[in-house]
């Protein structure tokens, strides 16, 4: 079994704008089961960060517990990282983000980590519009603890042991829409053409960007009758639209047919291009997104692509009006301006 990756890379792959090659964004060799969807999502994260020329030291990856939460070891080994306790990734990220708003926060969680033990943390991070990317690697089970049904498992989905799930599954995207999340989308680990630009857009979004990525567990939930198996997902996939992301530095080289393409400008000048839209859906209209999702679900389909985006999103720092400078960069003098200032504040309460 190989535990070290060869150092060689394809000679024609060029360094990106900040001088890094793709392997600079990799981590150590994965110890997940061969064929796990989570590894493909790691691959997509690596690809997205390489292509958007993110400087590794300007990103922090945070996770909870689970096979999915182990993945940060397998990507971005030159970035900051925090592997928290089960379900507590959102509060650790909140703290980190409060202290240093200059980093990109990439939270990685599982359906168990988020939809069960971490549910309370998850919903409040959404409500506060914390500026982070929140990826759930959703396999419908607790992979790490040997495949028990998770809270997102579909009603009636058959487990590897043969039992049918008696409970309805929580739809995390539906929940996020309900809670006014500002960026909501779903993707599939086996569809990098869609997933990579969605991760890029999520990173560019100022606020809580939620990506629920269906990610088959090859070992415990890839059996016949499971609604999270590779073959079931492939057979039932339905897209909201074709998705592309154009970073602000890039010129648009692809010719988009104006009539069929919707262009959404993001806060930092980058843009999202959506083509082949379903007519009854508008990505900036939350209600149409909810309806679109229900329409797909009623057919037993898995709807992927962007669901909803609030292009005017304002994150937590704007809401609570923090200073421009990250708090961890403030000096002693700035943080503690002295007795006379304290007196002024105290007087204001009198």
């Amino acid at each position, binding site marked *: 079994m190989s535990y070290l990756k*060869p150092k060689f890379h394809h000679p024609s792959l060029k360094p990106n704008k900040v001088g890094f090659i793709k392997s600079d964004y990799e981590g150590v060799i994965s110890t997940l089961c061969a064929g796990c969807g989570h590894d493909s999502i790691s691959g997509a994260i690596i690809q997205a960060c390489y292509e958007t020329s993110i400087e590794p030291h300007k990103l922090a990856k945070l996770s909870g517990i689970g096979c999915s939460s182990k993945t940060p070891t397998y990507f971005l080994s030159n970035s900051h990282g925090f592997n928290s306790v089960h379900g507590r990734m959102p509060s650790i990220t909140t703290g980190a983000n409060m202290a240093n708003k200059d980093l990109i926060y990439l939270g990685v969680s599982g359906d168990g980590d988020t939809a069960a033990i971490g549910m309370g943390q998850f919903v409040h991070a959404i409500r506060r519009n914390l500026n982070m990317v929140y990826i759930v690697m959703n396999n419908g089970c607790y992979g790490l603890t040997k495949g028990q049904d998770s809270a997102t498992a579909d009603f009636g989905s058959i487990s590897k042991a043969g039992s049918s799930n008696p409970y309805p599954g929580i739809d995390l995207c539906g929940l996020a829409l309900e809670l006014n999340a500002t960026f909501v989308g779903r993707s599939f680990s086996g569809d990098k053409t869609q997933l990579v630009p969605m991760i890029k857009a999520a990173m560019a979004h100022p606020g809580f960007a939620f990506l629920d990525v269906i990610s088959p567990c090859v070992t415990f939930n890839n059996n016949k009758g499971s609604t999270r198996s590779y073959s079931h997902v492939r057979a039932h996939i339905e897209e909201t639209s074709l998705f592309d992301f154009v970073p602000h530095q890039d010129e648009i080289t692809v010719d988009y047919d104006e009539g069929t393409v919707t262009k959404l400008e993001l806060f930092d000048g980058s843009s999202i291009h959506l083509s082949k839209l379903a007519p009854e859906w508008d990505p900036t209209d939350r209600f149409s997104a909810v309806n679109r999702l229900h329409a797909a679900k009623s057919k037993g389909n898995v709807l992927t692509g962007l669901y909803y985006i609030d292009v005017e999103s304002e994150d937590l720092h704007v809401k609570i009006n923090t200073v421009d400078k990250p708090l961890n960069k403030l000096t002693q003098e700035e943080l503690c301006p002295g007795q006379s200032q304290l007196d002024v504040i105290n007087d204001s309460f009198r």
Partner: protein
Amino acid sequence: MKPTNIKDPEYFHKVVDCQYACPAHTPVPEYIRLIAAQKYTEAFMINWESNVFPGVLGRTCDRPCEPACRRGRVEEEPVAICRLKRVAADNKGEVKHLMPQAPFPSNGKKVALIGGGPASLTAARDLAPLGYELHLYDEWGKGGGMMRTQIPAFRLPEAVLDEEVNFVLDMGIHTHFNTFVDSMKEILDKDYDAVFVGTGAPKGRSLEIEGYEEAKDNIHIGIEFLASVAFEHKESVGKKVIVLGGGNTAMDCCRTSKRLGGKEVTVVVRSPRQDMKASPWEIEDAEREDIIIHNNMPPKRFVVENGKLKGVIFGKVRAEYDENGKRKLIPTGEPDMMIEADDVIVAIGQDNAFPWIEKDIGIEFGKWNVPVLDKVTFQSTLDKVFFGGDAAFGPENVITAVAHGHQAAVSIDLFCSGKSVNERLAPMTNLISQKMGIHEWTYDNHIESDLRYLVPHEDKNISLKDRKVEVELGFDLGIGFKEAQRCLNCDVQTVFTEDLCIECDACVDVCPTDCITFTNNGEEQDLRSRLNAPAENMTQDLYVSDTLLTTRVMIKDEDVCLHCGLCSERCPTEAWDMVKYLYNTTKTYTKNGKGDCC
């Protein structure tokens, strides 16, 4: 694109870049692994079966395998394949008992081999075990051909050559040394069933420009000079020596002169440096011995004073290339330059010469005086006469002569058995899975990042004093091991089974060199531009699967695959397997299963 036919023996053969490039198709990675396992004897025998002269070639081979080596495409330098061969040869144990043991039961057929160089010796080695009575003729007193007369002892010690020549001659070959064959007719009149001509390209070109007649006592033809040094007929040269020519012969002549008393040895080449025919390492070795090389200077005339050579006058040119890359040397207008010399050695090329083959006996010759031959069978227009080595298509090198010898032996055996020489057997191939357990391979799949190791050289002060002191010292066992570990095991093939693939992308993600892509099928050019990493090296094939469930296909660019097996380790369904591919060119030698050690 159509799905790749991996049953075609040439498909995977091509992936083993070194073996494919080797004229004799030596199974390189197989012996390199044996060296790493300290099995030098076995590594030697694999070489010996393929190329007959591992010790000689491990020092002197032209190494067409090295520029082809995959390692050179993912890193700066190829594996030092040639020098590893020497490690096997230098450290082997007893080998004679592993070779076919003479006497062999006679098959009643007699074959004459004219010339005692590597081509004839290879044919002899391949035919002897089959019971042929073989008669080998050479004008010199010992076998080896130009390996003995031309390659200087400081590159190839006589003892190494003797040992390997004798392995062949000891197989009961009837030698007729010191015998120059001066009539093909006489040979044909004897009752040989077939004749093999391996007489090389023995005629060195001379340069009869102005002043030649008066100076000719001090003007020598390169290959004649080297032969007379090898046989100790010439033991010194003047203090100032000019060597004309830019090939390997020129390099051997200048370095030999340096050892025979030459103090100021200059090589003068008419063309620019990048056009010199000599191998880069030969040029390097010469310069390390303080030999000066001048380029862009064609000789104009020999200067003679008092009836004795004084020097040579050279013009000055620059090279211009037209759109077809054809070169023209254009005078620069600078004044001519005179270089003083006591001796001049002319090393500007060799030609074939067959003054001893009568023109009316049915052997046709074409352009450049080379015989008209079938390129596969080496049969001449006279059906019982076969050619090989430098005699066949002009001067090449030892390994090409060996490859010719093998093929001519196959033809001769077919011919003598009354079969068509075109009824050649397909190469022997074999696919063996390397799987030992989950993620466990029988080969060492870890990729070392080490750069190529340099071969140590003897101290110049010692080697320049005696022409028999070998310059290169070879790798010691430790470095040999490390260099062997640089080999990527290109013969361990990635074999894909589409029925098993669930298209999970695991192999795509893990591949360190981005070789694998799942995409919609298309024409080759279009596909090459759409892969995860553009496949721009057209000499390397794309491995294309049949259509998968999602209607896509798997495409693997063979170009920079590291054969690390990670795709196979990450695949949940064993759709990828790592399979060792053995490819053995057909040789009469292996016909009876003799010496079939791999």
